[in-house]
């Protein structure tokens, strides 16, 4: 780690916290990350990770139309337009998948690219209007966190709270819908209506982030925190809370890091922070993490090999009529390549004894252990 950079950050941090823009952006990004992260858990578990991508792209024409129809640049109006368009996009995806043989991936691809194209058409049409220069709709493409105002943060937090509230209210139902919709239907739950409600919640969690992160990258805010959280827990409640925490953490760190450097856009920085969280989770999460997995595999392989060497020693001892009969390390190596290392491990457990510099025999405790583990019993060793 670059010490100068760290020292610079330490000096800059108090200044940064006093900075109004940064505080607003960090607060907004944190609220957004918490909402989209926790609600994204449902999408990821339902294998709808890419629905978020389609919804966020589909929102673009909604933003443009909302501006064209109302002439208002207020974030709330634009976001309402985004939500309606995103919602229509989702319904079209469901309709295509439900009534034709076109598969979900194609349906998502069509909706996201065609809606986005339509959005571009509308944006270029708006640019020709006299009041266009102030519209600032471009900020929704890649997101411009710096344009966040305090009231935008309030709106993110407010709408996010509504979405989270709905999810909390229908917690049991949404869980059922996520893990076993058929069972839910057989219990008499209105699964279709719940599906629409959960989709609406997802749409809200996406459109509130468009101004900060932009339509192109918003899907990462839904997928990444949940994918990271999934590695740490097998419980739905824990996953939702953890994903919210990850999202908020990435939001704040992305906002701070992007403010430290010059010309470092906030949205992509948040996404990269999330990527780091995902990679760390994939590697180090207990149980599922890849590092632990490989440690566990090595330990297993080691134990199996040790068993084999112990079994070999035991078989030799029985063949030669006594535990005290010693065998050359080379002979054991020939039977079990790499036995040398296991012999030391066996000796440490008191199951084998080095009788000479280059000879080993099994101990009574080792014989008992071999008996207990059923190793080496049926083994015939050729002299």
């Amino acid at each position, binding site marked *: 780690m670059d010490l100068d950079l760290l020292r610079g950050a330490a000096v800059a941090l108090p200044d940064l916290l006093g900075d109004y823009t940064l505080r607003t952006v960090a607060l907004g990004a944190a609220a957004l990350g918490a909402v989209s992260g926790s609600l994204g858990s449902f999408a990821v578990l339902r294998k709808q990770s890419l629905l978020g991508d389609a919804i966020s792209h589909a929102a673009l024409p909604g933003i443009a139309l909302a501006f064209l129809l109302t002439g208002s640049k207020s974030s709330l109006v634009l976001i309402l337009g985004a939500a309606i368009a995103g919602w229509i996009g989702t319904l079209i995806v469901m309709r295509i998948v439900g009534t034709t043989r076109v598969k979900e991936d194609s349906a998502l691809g069509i909706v996201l690219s065609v809606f986005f194209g339509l959005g571009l058409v509308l944006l270029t049409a708006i640019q020709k209007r006299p009041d266009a220069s102030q519209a600032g709709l471009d900020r929704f493409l890649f997101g411009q966190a710096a344009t966040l105002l305090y009231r935008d943060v309030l709106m993110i937090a407010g709408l996010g709270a509504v979405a989270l509230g709905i999810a909390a209210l229908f917690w049991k139902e949404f869980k059922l819908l996520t893990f076993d919709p058929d069972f839910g239907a057989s219990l008499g739950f209105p699964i279709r209506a719940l599906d629409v409600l959960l989709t609406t919640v997802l749409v809200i969690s996406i459109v509130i982030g468009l101004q900060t992160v932009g339509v192109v990258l918003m899907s990462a805010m839904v997928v990444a925190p949940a994918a990271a959280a999934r590695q740490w827990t097998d419980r739905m409640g824990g996953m939702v809370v953890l994903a919210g925490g990850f999202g908020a953490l990435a939001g704040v760190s992305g906002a701070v890091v992007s403010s430290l450097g010059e010309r470092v856009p906030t949205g992509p*920085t948040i996404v990269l922070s999330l990527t780091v969280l995902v990679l760390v989770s994939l590697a180090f999460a207990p149980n599922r993490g890849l590092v632990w997995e490989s440690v566990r595999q090595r330990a297993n392989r080691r134990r199996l090999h040790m068993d084999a060497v112990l079994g070999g020693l035991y078989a030799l001892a029985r063949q030669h009529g006594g535990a005290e009969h010693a065998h050359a390390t080379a002979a054991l190596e020939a039977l079990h390549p790499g036995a040398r290392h296991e012999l030391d491990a066996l000796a440490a457990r008191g199951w084998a004894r080095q009788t000479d510099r280059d000879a080993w025999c099994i101990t009574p405790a080792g014989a008992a252990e071999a008996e207990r583990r059923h190793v080496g019993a049926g083994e015939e060793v050729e002299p």
Partner: protein
Amino acid sequence: MIALSPEQEIQWIAAVTAAACAIPGVFLVLRRMALMSDAISHAILLGIVLGFFVTGNVASPLLIAAAAATGVLTVSLVELLNRTRLVKEDAAIGLVFPALFSLGVILISRYAGNVHLDVDAVLLGELAFAPFNRWVVGGVDLGPRTLWVMVAVLAMGLAFVLAFYKELKLTTFDAALAGALGFAPGLVHYAFMTLVSVTAVGAFDAVGSVLVVALMIAPPAAAYLLTDRLPRMIVLSVVIGVASALAGYWMSYLLDVSIAGSMATMTGVSFALAFLFAPERGALALARRRARQRWEFAQTMLAIHLLNHEGSADAAEENREGHLHAHLRWQPDFARQVVRRAQGAGLVHRVDGDHLALTDRGRTVASEVIGV
């Protein structure tokens, strides 16, 4: 050399790009990997930026190579994530390309902000400027560079599909059988993904990365609703793609809006038309078939009902139009229509007023259905 006006050149570029995208698109749709095009077309931004840093030249062919390599890298990263089985495939795609794209955006805005390389152009494309970038060899103007690039990409795609048609077809429809027969589905897969990457790079230079997705997915998906045969699907995809691209160009010309956006919109219109009006799989055909089946089923029910009570003591009571409501739970209107249709089909005739009787044909139909 024929001299083309800039408008004609743009239309040629649009048409060739649409055709070049449609060919690999067919296999993406059939292999259920449509969203790989989305991932690749975004991730190649990073390759272009890195290539630019190495060469310092936006027009260098190395940029295309670097971008295509990033596309293949995206595919392998998604598969690597998949193989850990820690995340599902859709999430793997959703994790990889935003990360690579973000890296590209940050590098551009931090180090390449003031050169001719900006995210807007990469993402949205600007076909209108394509004619300004000429390919001049020895003082001779050969036309827009983009057109030549796309012709080369189209030729490559055609050659690839023609050369490996059998392999592509088999690995697409039955990967397990292909593996068992020794076709190395993995190799075909990576070769194909390289083609997709190269196509995406060439096309996104012309029309932007989101439109690449529209041109690759929407026309083949529309064609998929129109035919069951692979060769016909490829041809139809190209035709639909080219038609949408040209229609999009004219829409943008008439309304004076984004060309790329209009082309994407038109691919959507094409798909919507196929979705509604496809002869066998369209929504309209489905609705008509369902309605016909409903009437046919009702007529058969009526015939069975009449047969059931024919000649029995309660026949006079049961075999009346007015009684169908009580017996079959039919609304009077519906019952009247069913009777009229059944009369038209020669299954039933009215004895007097309300009273119905089966014709010989009706009797045969009903007996056949209940298996007497």
